[in-house]
């Protein structure tokens, strides 16, 4: 094996993810680095299903299934109890974009502000996929979903969850995707090393049915998200110090990311959407480069 990714598995097969599920893969890869001294908290999300129907489950670590909006705080509660038992078990809150950007944001913010010693992972498939593709605040502008139909695609830009998280000044936050497994693995390792406080991973996870891509294109589409700079890979320490961890070269035209996915059909009908998306991506990248550059400077105060 030539990947710097552990061989050990902590997810049994028999999971109920759709074919080509980016969320299922993300869990596999994250747990490889986390190991088995861990407990996962799953709010309502695709993973509520993927883990398998009672009385079975797939993860080789304990799982607590919880209400949609409570992943972060239930994890904090579990962590408090385990710490009292003298155990430094890693507690992972594993939530989708709905459970993070939307309904779970309050509890997430609370946990982040208290700097709870948990690893929060948002696997972001950019809509409510488990309920059948409804828009969330993680849905990019111009996207088709069942609640933002072709005639009225998502009108607003995707919420900047990393910005929100960074504003809480937690020790470590990073973006990652399974299409870059070693980058992802390294970030999980870094997050594990930053134990003691809140760690946040924002993982882009392709959803073939929701994104309208062939199952076998799931990795390709995530890779293109990175290569087109739509989903930059970076990390933020203490909410201030930015490091871009991968600079695509050459940068893929955004059309090659959009064009692969049926959910972006509205872009085909409206070239202005493409131009706007390109501008957003460029602005965001320029801003990240500025932050990266600034973070390299010695502190002045």
């Amino acid at each position, binding site marked *: 094996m030539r990947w710097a990714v552990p061989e050990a598995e902590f997810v049994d097969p*028999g999971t109920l993810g759709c074919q080509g599920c980016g969320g299922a893969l993300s869990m596999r890869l994250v747990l490889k680095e986390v190991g088995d001294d861990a407990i996962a908290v799953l709010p309502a999300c695709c993973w509520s299903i993927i883990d398998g129907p009672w009385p079975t489950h797939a993860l080789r670590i304990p799982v607590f299934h919880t209400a949609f909006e409570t992943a972060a705080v239930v994890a904090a509660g579990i962590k408090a109890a385990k710490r009292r038992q003298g155990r430094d078990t890693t507690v992972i809150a594993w939530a989708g974009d709905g459970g993070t950007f939307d309904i779970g944001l309050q509890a997430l913010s609370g946990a982040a502000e208290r700097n709870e010693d948990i690893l929060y992972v948002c696997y972001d498939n950019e809509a409510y996929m488990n309920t059948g593709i409804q828009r969330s605040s993680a849905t990019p502008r111009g996207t088709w979903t069942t609640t933002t139909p072709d005639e009225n695609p998502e009108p607003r830009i995707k919420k900047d969850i990393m910005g929100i998280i960074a504003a809480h000044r937690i020790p470590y936050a990073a973006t990652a995707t399974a299409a870059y497994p070693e980058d992802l693995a390294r970030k999980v390792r870094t997050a594990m090393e930053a134990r003691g406080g809140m760690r946040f991973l924002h993982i882009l996870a392709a959803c073939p049915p929701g994104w309208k891509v062939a199952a076998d294109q*799931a990795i390709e589409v995530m890779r293109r998200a990175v290569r087109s700079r739509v989903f930059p890979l970076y990390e933020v320490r203490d909410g201030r110090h930015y490091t871009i961890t991968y600079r695509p070269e050459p940068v893929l035209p955004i059309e090659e990311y959009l064009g692969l996915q049926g959910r972006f059909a509205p872009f085909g009908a409206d070239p202005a959407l493409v131009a706007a998306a390109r501008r957003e991506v460029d602005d965001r990248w320029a801003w990240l480069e500025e932050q990266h550059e600034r973070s390299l400077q010695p502190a002045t105060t």
Partner: protein
Amino acid sequence: MTPLDHVDDYPEIPVSLGSTRAAIKTGDWRSVRPVEVDRTAPCAFACPAGVDVPRYLDLIRLGRLDEALAVFAERNPFPRITGRVCPHSCEDGCNLAAATGDDPVAIRSIERWLGDATAQIPLPQPFEATRRRVAVVGSGPAGLAAAYYLRRSGHRVTVYERRPIAGGMLRHAIPEYRLPSAVVDAEIARLVDMGIEFVTGVELGRDFHLDELAPEHSAVFLATGACRARPVGITGEHLLDSGLEFLETAGLDLSIGRGMRCAVIGGGNTALDVARVVRRLGGEVTVLYRRTAEEMPAIREEYHHAVADGVVFEWLTLPRSVEKGEAGLVVTVEEMRLGKPDGSGRRRPEPTGRVRQLIFDRVFSAVGETADSTPFPANLKNAEGWLEVGPGGATADEMVHAGGDLVTGPATVVAAIAAGREAARLIDRRLGFSDRWASMPHQPVVGPDEVNPSYRSSARRTSDPKARTVDPLGEETLTVAAEAVLVELERCLSCGHCNACGTCFVLCPDGAIRWEEDGPVIDLEFCKGCGICVVECPGRALVLVNEREGPSFDGTSGASSDGRTSGRHGNGEAVLSKGGQVNA
């Protein structure tokens, strides 16, 4: 898990009781199945000898050099030789280059390194002795290769060589700076160690005749090469030196000094070799060629080296006469232009009538070589007097076979090796032995649109480092370092061959690919058939097979419980040849 038939079977706390592994067989969801299968790589397909490049590269990476050598020797027993002089059409076929625009994998450099690193390891040894004897006439690459494969088949082999020392063109035509004779000696010594007998200083047609071999030998392989220089056919021909002879004695030719003005007539490998030797000996040299660089038959790389050496080229220049003048040899040349393509597909040079004169101290002829057919009996020759040779080197005489430059005219070492090997196969079969040799790589070849170079190495292509030597004819490059080989190996996509890179294992969303000691095993009990492993496989060593229509490996219609189906774990060739729908 206990069956939950009664409320009392249920736990008080609603926690799970077992793993999905036992209860949920997601393999049921599948309509297509990934199958690991060895497919032909374009490099192997492009190689005249059909060397299975991905497989031996994989073995080098694993540090199993003796196995790598064995794989190589299945098709070519002389990696030390071809690793130095081969025009490496394998690299021209490289999918990495075609799919990405990156430089192709430096296969020849790796091959050379393998040859040198395994120089002390015996070649794969003979199978059980057959008590048959086979004669090989000529000890150039075709003769040596045939001798090796015949000996490997268990036959007793005697090689007859007209010169006092074996090696043929390898020793006498390829300059020392490209292929040191010490390397040729070592390779021949290995053949001697295998029990191949060499009889030197005996020439067919002079010292013995073909029919004299019959009583002692079950078969004969003729590989006497193309060693007769073609005349230029101009006035003053007698003033020209033979390029071929010059190459044979170059190390001893002290007449060429610094500043001596030389010309070489021709555009083939001999011409360039002569030109470069002259440069090495301190002379100035101009190549006179009647066409342009485009049409030159010489190995392209050698042309670039020649330019780098300071060789001057006069294109579209056809010598018409040579005469002695006061300042030296006066060569009258006519300027040519290119017309319509000729039989070789190259544009034919046509005279323009414009002539000029050039002055040189020495002029070498190197416009090509032909075989010498005089020693062969008439019944083996065609109307033009050439040997008539069919597939596998068969001639009109069941016992006599021929190959190499003797048959093809001047060609590459690797082509001669391939011819020797194919002839050995045919002889082996004709002697009544079932074919013990893998067939040549066949279509379909993994195409550049099938590979996935997304995770390719960002390393730059390696190359053989320049040697620093005081000997002007000493080997000009060094063998790459082992470290460089390891880096270069990572650049290979391993088209059509699973080299256990782990991409399929890492990227399977469903954990349906197990990682075992020697690589991935697809667990068909759980594989959902998403196809990610297939499209992400860098070298497309996996294909998708339709569950309904495709063949199955265990002879049943359903999924087998174990994905050990191919390539790394078995022979997957069967899959493709069964003709089932391969939806790759």
